[in-house]
C-alpha cells in the first residue's frame, strides 16, 4: 500500500483504482496504523468512507453492508445485525449515541485516496 504525505499534515492512503470500486457496494481499506475503513461509491459516483468495525459486534464488516438511503440520507446497513448508519455523519440511525468514525475520501486522477485518520481526530 502507498502512503502519500501532503504538506498540511493530512496523510492520504491510496485505496484503489477509481474504476475498481463497484457502484453501490463497499470495499475495505487497511490504514497505516492497522485500523480499517469501509469505502463506498454510490449510484451518483459520490464517495464515502466510515470505520469498518461494526460497533455492535466488533467485527470488521461494514464494507460488506448494503448501501441505500433512509429519507434521502445515504446509508449503509451493518451486514451483521442490520443497524443502519448514515454515510455522511457515521451516526447510527437505529441507536442513539452510536457512531462510526468518518474519513475524507478524494478521487485524484485515476485513483481513490482516503485520509489516514478519521475526521476530527486530534493529532
Amino acid at each position, binding site marked *: 500500500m502507498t502512503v502519500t504525505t501532503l504538506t498540511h499534515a493530512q496523510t492520504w492512503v491510496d485505496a484503489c483504482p477509481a474504476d475498481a470500486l463497484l457502484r453501490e*457496494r463497499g470495499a*475495505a*481499506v487497511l490504514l497505516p496504523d492497522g485500523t480499517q475503513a469501509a469505502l463506498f461509491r454510490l449510484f451518483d459516483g459520490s464517495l464515502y468512507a466510515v470505520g469498518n468495525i461494526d460497533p455492535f459486534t*466488533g467485527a470488521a*464488516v461494514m464494507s460488506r*453492508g448494503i448501501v441505500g438511503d433512509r429519507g434521502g440520507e445515504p446509508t449503509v446497513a451493518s451486514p451483521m445485525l*442490520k443497524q*443502519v448508519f448514515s454515510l455522511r455523519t457515521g451516526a447510527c440511525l437505529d441507536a*442513539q449515541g452510536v457512531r462510526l468514525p468518518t474519513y475524507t475520501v478524494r478521487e485524484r486522477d485515476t485513483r481513490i485516496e482516503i485520509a489516514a485518520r478519521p475526521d*476530527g481526530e486530534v493529532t
Partner: protein
Amino acid sequence: MRQLVVIGNGMVGHRLVEAVRDRDTEGTWAITVLGEESRPAYDRVALSSYFDGATEADLRMPDLVTDDRIRLRLGESATSIDRAERTVTTSTGDRVGYDALVLATGSSPFVPPVPGHDLPGCHVYRTIDDLEAITATAEFARTGVVIGGGLLGLEAANALRLLGLEAHVVEMAPWLMPRQVDEGGGAVLGRLIDDTGVVVHSGAALSGIEADADGHAVRVRLGEDEAIDTDIVVFSVGVRPRDELARQSGLDLGPRGGVAIDTACRTSDPHIYAVGECASADGMVYGLIAPGNAMAEVVADRLLDGRAAFTGSDTSTKLKLLGIDVASFGDALGAGENTLDVVVNDAPGKRYAKLVISDDARTLLGGILVGDASAYASLRPLVGRELPGDPLALISPSGDGAAIGVDALPDDAQICSCNAVTKAQINHAIEGGACDIAALKGCTKAGTSCGSCVPMLKTLLSQAGVEQSSALCEHFTHSRAELVQIITATGIATFSDLIARHGTGRGCDICKPAVASILASLGGGHILEGEQAALQDTNDHFLANIQRNGTYSVVPRIPGGEITPDKLIVIGEVARDFNLYTKITGGQRIDLFGARVEQLPEIWRRLVDAGFESGHAYGKSLRTVKSCVGSTWCRYGVQDSVGLAVELELRYRGLRAPHKIKAGVSGCARECAEARGKDIGVIATENGWNLYVGGNGGFTPRHAQLIASDVDHDTLIRYIDRFMMFYIRTADRLQRTAPWIEAMDGGLDHLREVVVEDSLGIARELEADMARHVSAYADEWRGVLEDPDKLARFVSFTNAPGTPDPTIRFEVERDQPVPAGPVTLGMPALPTHAEV
C-alpha cells in the same frame, strides 16, 4: 466566544458536551472538559460487561468531536473554584476561566470505616481502574466477598463468579436489593441467586477484615462470631456524591449531600450548574443514568437560552442480573399511607409479583416483579392510574399481564419510559400519518432505546385502525407479491429501473435483497451479474454465510444427505488444509466455518474440482431435502426415499424464494426424515407418495398438512413445481410457507384447489416457470471461479488484497479453531442490562 468549563468526563459530563454541541450550531460556546480519569468517558452502566470480555474500547462512549471548540483535558482534575474570579484551578496548577461552569463529578463508592477496610485485597467497583485492580488480585484468588447486596453488589458478585471465584454476598438487611424489593420479593430473589452458585449472607453485619502475615486481607468478620475466608473483598454499600469542590467554594448542598440545584439545574451560584450523580434535585440524589442525562439536556438548553426544566425522574428499574429478571416501579415498597398490596408469591415457581394499590383498590401506585418481569412494560405506565381490571389477574401466572390492553391507559400515560413518550403523543403521531413502527420511532423516539415498548406501539397502531402497511419499506409502497406482478408484467430487469419507475429514493437493505431475489426467481442469471451484485446481502454477495467474527462458512451441497467416501475425504482434506472448524449440520450435510473472505475462492476451487457445488446455505432458497434410507436398506421402507430426495434436491437447487425452503422424504409412515416438519414433506405409501406442505421447525414450529395422497412420481413432481412457484409469486418477503398458507384467503383448501385442481388455470404457467429454472440452473460457485471480475471481489482489503483481516483471531476449543475473544453482540455505549 463564551467559555464553558465542565468538571468531570463521566457519562453525564459527556452527554452534556454532546448536547451543547448538538444545539450550539452557531458555535457560541468554547468548551473545556477536565477529567480526573485518564480515559475518555466510558459506559459505566455496562461496566460489568468488562468481565464478559468487553474491552475498554467496547465501553468507550462515542468520541467527542474534538476541534478548536472542545478541549478534553484528561488526567487533570479540578482542585478549586474561585467563584469571584470565575476560574477553576486544576491539578497541574493551571487556572481556567469560565462564563459557565458545570459540575459533573459523579459520586464515589462509600467504604465503611471498619477495621481493615484499606488492606491490600480490598476494592471498590466504579471505574475501569477498579476492575483492572480486581482482575489482578483475582488471578491468585479462589474466593471473593462482596459487601453489599444491592444492584451493584450483585453485579460485582457476578463479576467475581466470571473471574472463576467462589462468590459471597454480604447484605446487612434481611434480604437482597432492599431498596428495590420487599421481603417476599427478596426471599424469591435470594433463592434464585442461590441457584447461580453465589453464596448469600443476608442480615449479616460486617465487623472487620483481618489480614495475614503479609498484611493481605484474608478474612471477613461478620457480627461477633461468623467469618468468611477470602482472598478479595469488594465494597458495594452505596455511593456518596462528589460534592467536595462545591463544599469548599460555599455552594449550597442538599440535605443528604450533593450540590443543591433548582429546576434549571443551577446551583446557588447562577454561573454554576451541576448534573448527574453529584447533584441534589429537590433533596434527591439520583444514582441512575436516565435522570443524569435528562439534567444534561436541561443544562445544554439553558446555556443556549432555552427554558427546559428538570422536575424529577422515574426511578423504575428493570434488569436482568445473573440471568434473573427483577423489576420495581413506582412506589414499589408501599411507602405512601394507606396502601394495599396484591401479592402473588409463587415460591416453587420462583416467581414473585406485587402490586401496590390505593386503599380504595382503584389506583396502581407501584409494584415489584421478581423471576419474571414480562409484565413490566405494560404495568409501569399504569402507575398513578385507575386499574384496568382485577389487579390479581394482572400478575397471576395464568393471567397474561403483558396483554393488558393499552386502551385501558389514559392519554397522558407514558408508553415509552426511556424517552418519556405518552400515549397521546404516539396517537398524535399516528394521526399525523406515522403508519408503522419505523415512522413512530422516527418522529417520537419511542421504542428507540430498550425496545420494551414496541409491542404496545404495534397495538396502538392497529387500534388506530392503521392497516399495518404491506409496503415493503420506505422505498416501495408495494408488497413483495405486487412487485412480482409488476416485474413479470413489465419485464423490468434491473433494480434501478424498478425503483425509478415504481419506487422512491435509492433503496435499502430490505428492498434490495427482496428485489434481487425476485429477479433471480424469475430467471435473472448469475446473482452476482452486473447491478445485481450490489443488491445482495453479504451472504449472497460472497456466496457464504457470515459468522460473528466476520469470517464465513462453507456448505457444499450433499443432495439427500447421501455422500461417497471419496467426497467425504475431500471435505475433510479441505477443512484440514484451511484449518476450518467442521460440524455436521441439522440438515444432513457438513458445514466448514471460519473461512476468511479471500480464502473462499481457493476453498471452493478445491471443492468444485472434486465435484461439489454450492449448497446455497446463504440464500433464501432451497436448503436441503432430508431423507431416510428407505426401501434400499430399511426393512420397513416401501419406496426409494433417498432416490426421490436426491432428485428433488437437484431439481430445486438454487431456486430463490421469499424465504428458505426445506423438504424431506420418508420411506414409510414411521417418518424418520421428519418430512412433516418441512415446507415440503413427502411420505411413501404402498401405492405412491403423500404430499404435505407448510411445515417448519424454527421459531414457530408447524406440522405440514396433507394436500395430495397416493400420487405417482410424476404427479408428485408436478404438484411440487406448482406449489413452489405459486409460493414464490405470492408470498411476502421472509414469509415461510406455513404463514403464507394461513394468510391465504381460503387457506389450505384454496391452496389444494390451485395446486391439485388448477382452479386458477395457472398450473401450466407455474410448471413452465419451474422448467425454465431447472434448465437454466448453473452452479453459482463455478460461475464465480470462471469469471475474473467476480473473483476480484473476494479480497480482504482493496489496497492489500491478500492481507488477512487483523481483527480475525482464533483459539482452539475441543481441538478445532473457533473465534477468539468474547461474543460482543449487543448495544455499544448504551445501557444493555437495565432500563431506567
